[in-house]
C-alpha cells in the first residue's frame, strides 16, 4: 500500500488501556488559559518517568466553556485507576490553583466513575472554602490571595487508550521533521486525542529493556536508529536516514484511529520513504491499530483483532516499543529507574 509514493507497512501499533480524565481549564484571557494548561501538562510525556501523560486536546471558545470564558480541554492519562486522582490533585494544586484567574471544570460529566479531586483541593481554603451547587454539580470556591479559585468537586474517569503511534521513516532529518510537523498540524484539535510528547513528536523511541544495563526498562530503539545501521540488526529500509514518531493517547479506540488516519495521510510527503508503527508483536497491548486498515477503511482494525505479521522491528529480532502505553515496558511494570534519559516514555 502506498500513499503519494510513501509505503504504508503492513503492521500495527499496539496500545494499552489507560484511565483518562478530561479537564476544562478557563481563565480571564487566552494567555492565562495557556499558561495554566502548559504547566499542568508539562513533564507529562510518558507514564514511565512522569507517572502520567497529558496534553491539550483543543482550545475552547467562550461558548463552549461553563463560565463563558476562554478555555482549553486537557486529557490526562494514567495506567492505574487509583493513580489518576492522585496525579490530578498534585498537578491541579500546583499549576492551576496557583495560576491567576483560572477555574477548573470536569470535562466528562456523564461518566459515572467519579474522582473527588475538587473535594480534596478545597481544603487549601483552610475552612474558609464554600461550595455552590448548580445544575446538580457541586463547585468549590477556594479563597486565595487573588480572589477565589473555582474547582468542580468531582471529575469523571473512564477507560482510555494510550500508545497509539506511527513512525515516519524519511530520507533526511529535515524531511522527517517536516512530515511530523504536517502530521501534528493535521491532528491538532481533533476530539478525544492528545499527542503527549514535545510538539507531538518523539525522536527517541525505545525498546523494552537493555542489551547492556540491567536497571534500564527502556533503552534506545537501535533497530530504528540510523547511526547504528551498520552495527545492529537494523529495521531501516535503504535510504532512510531519520525516523520520528507520533504518539497518540485517546479517549477510545475510534478517536485514535481517526487521528492516525489524518496524521498518516498528512505525513505522506516528499522525502518520506515509509510509515510504520511500534508494537510488541500483539502480545501485550489489547488495542491494535493496523495501519493499512486505518488508511483504507476509517475506524477499522479494532481491538482484539488477530495480530498481523510482525512489524519490521520484531521481524528483525529487536522487539521495540517506541513509546506506546507504558513506554517500552508492559503496563503492569511499575515505572522505575532513570528512564528519562533513554526512553521516550
Amino acid at each position, binding site marked *: 500500500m502506498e500513499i503519494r509514493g510513501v509505503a504504508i507497512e503492513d503492521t500495527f501499533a499496539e496500545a494499552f488501556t489507560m484511565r483518562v480524565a478530561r479537564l476544562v481549564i478557563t481563565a480571564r484571557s487566552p494567555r492565562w488559559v495557556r499558561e495554566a494548561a502548559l504547566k499542568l501538562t508539562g513533564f507529562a510525556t510518558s507514564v514511565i518517568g512522569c507517572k502520567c501523560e497529558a496534553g491539550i486536546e483543543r482550545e475552547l471558545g467562550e461558548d463552549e466553556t461553563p*463560565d463563558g470564558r476562554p478555555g482549553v480541554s486537557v486529557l490526562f492519562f494514567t495506567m492505574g485507576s487509583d493513580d489518576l486522582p492522585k496525579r490530578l490533585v498534585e498537578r491541579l494544586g500546583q499549576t492551576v490553583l496557583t495560576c491567576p484567574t483560572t477555574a477548573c471544570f470536569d470535562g466528562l460529566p456523564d461518566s459515572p466513575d467519579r474522582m473527588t479531586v475538587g473535594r480534596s483541593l478545597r481544603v487549601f481554603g483552610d475552612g474558609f472554602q464554600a461550595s455552590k451547587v448548580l445544575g446538580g454539580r457541586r463547585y468549590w*470556591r477556594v479563597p486565595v490571595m487573588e*480572589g477565589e479559585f473555582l474547582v468542580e468537586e468531582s471529575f469523571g474517569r473512564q477507560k482510555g487508550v494510550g500508545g497509539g503511534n506511527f513512525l515516519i521513516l524519511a530520507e533526511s532529518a529535515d524531511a522527517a521533521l517536516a512530515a511530523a510537523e504536517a502530521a501534528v498540524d493535521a491532528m491538532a484539535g481533533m476530539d478525544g486525542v492528545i499527542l503527549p510528547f514535545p510538539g507531538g513528536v518523539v525522536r527517541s523511541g525505545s525498546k523494552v529493556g537493555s542489551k547492556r544495563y540491567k536497571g534500564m526498562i527502556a533503552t534506545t530503539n537501535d533497530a530504528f536508529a540510523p547511526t547504528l545501521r551498520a552495527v545492529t540488526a537494523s529495521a531501516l529500509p535503504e535510504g532512510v536516514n531519520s525516523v520520528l514518531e507520533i504518539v497518540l493517547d485517546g479517549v477510545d479506540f475510534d478517536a485514535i484511529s481517526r487521528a492516525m488516519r489524518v496524521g498518516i495521510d498528512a505525513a505522506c510527503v516528499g522525502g518520506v520513504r515509509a510509515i510504520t508503527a511500534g508494537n510488541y508483536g500483539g502480545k501485550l497491548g489489547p488495542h491494535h491499530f493496523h495501519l493499512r486498515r486505518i488508511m483504507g477503511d476509517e475506524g477499522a482494525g479494532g481491538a482484539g483483532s488477530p495480530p498481523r505479521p510482525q512489524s519490521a522491528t520484531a521481524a528483525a529480532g529487536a522487539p521495540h516499543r517506541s513509546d506506546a502505553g507504558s513506554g517500552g515496558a508492559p503496563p503492569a511494570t511499575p515505572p522505575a529507574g532513570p528512564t528519562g534519559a533513554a526512553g521516550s516514555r
Partner: protein
Amino acid sequence: MSDAVVLTLRGPLDHDVDAACVAPDRFAALGAREIAELPVWAGRTRARLGDFFAVEGERASRVRVRGDVARVHALGRAMRAGELDVEGSAGDGTGAGMEGGTLVVHGDVGHDAGAAMAGGVLCVNGRAGDNLAGARAGESRGMTGGEIVVRGAAGRDAGALVRRGLVVVGGAAGAGAGRAMIAGTLIVFGTLGAGAAAWSKRGTLVAMCGVSVPPTFRYACTYRPPHLALTLTYLRRHYALAVEDDHVTGEYRRYSGDLAELGRGEILEWIES
C-alpha cells in the same frame, strides 16, 4: 398512554380550589377517569378534579393546564418528576415541596411558590408573590434544593430561610429578600427592599441594582466572583435569561455577614462600570 395529559378549566372559578393532586409523576400511572376522580378542595368542600377540569390523555408524565387557574392552588405540590406546564397564572403554593421534575408557569404565581422545595426546576415567566422558596408555616427551613427562576418581580421574603439551591428573580424583590438564609444563592436583578440578607448564616445574595447593606455586614473586597460568572452563564444557557455581559464579567462588592449570626454569608453587589 398519551403524549401528555391536558387539563382544561371548564369555566371561570368564583372560589379557590386546592389541587395538590396535580403532579405529573402521579398522572403517569393513572387513566383519564382516575385522574378526573382525584380529590380536590373547593373552598371547604370536597370535590373531584374532573368537576373543574376536562381531562384529555392519560398515563403521561407531561401535563398541561389550560385556562385561568390563578385561583387554583398547590399545583405541582411535592411533584417528583415529569413536566407540568401551566399556560396562565397559578395560585399559591405552586411547586411547594417539589422534589424533582420541571414546572413552568407562563403567567404569575401566588404566595409560597416553591416553598420548602427540595429539587427540580420551577420557572415562572411572570411575577411571584411572597415567600418565594421560603419555609412552610411553622418550619425553620425553606428550599433545600433545586432551582427557581422568576422572570418578573417577587414579593416579600423571597429566598428567606433557604437552605440550599438557586433562586433567581428577574425583577425587583420586596422586603426581607434572603432573610435568614442558611445557605444557597439568591440573585435579584431588580431593586431590593429593606432587610435584605439580614440574619443570614451562610448563603449568597447577589444584588444587581444596589442594596441597602445591613449594619451587621462588613465590606470585604471588590472582585470578580468566578462562581457568579459560572452561574450567570448557566442561567443564560439553560433558562435563556437575558443576562447582560457586564453582569457576567463585571466586578462586585463583597460584604460578609451577618456578623450577628454565623457570619459566613455574603452580599455581592454589582458595580456599574
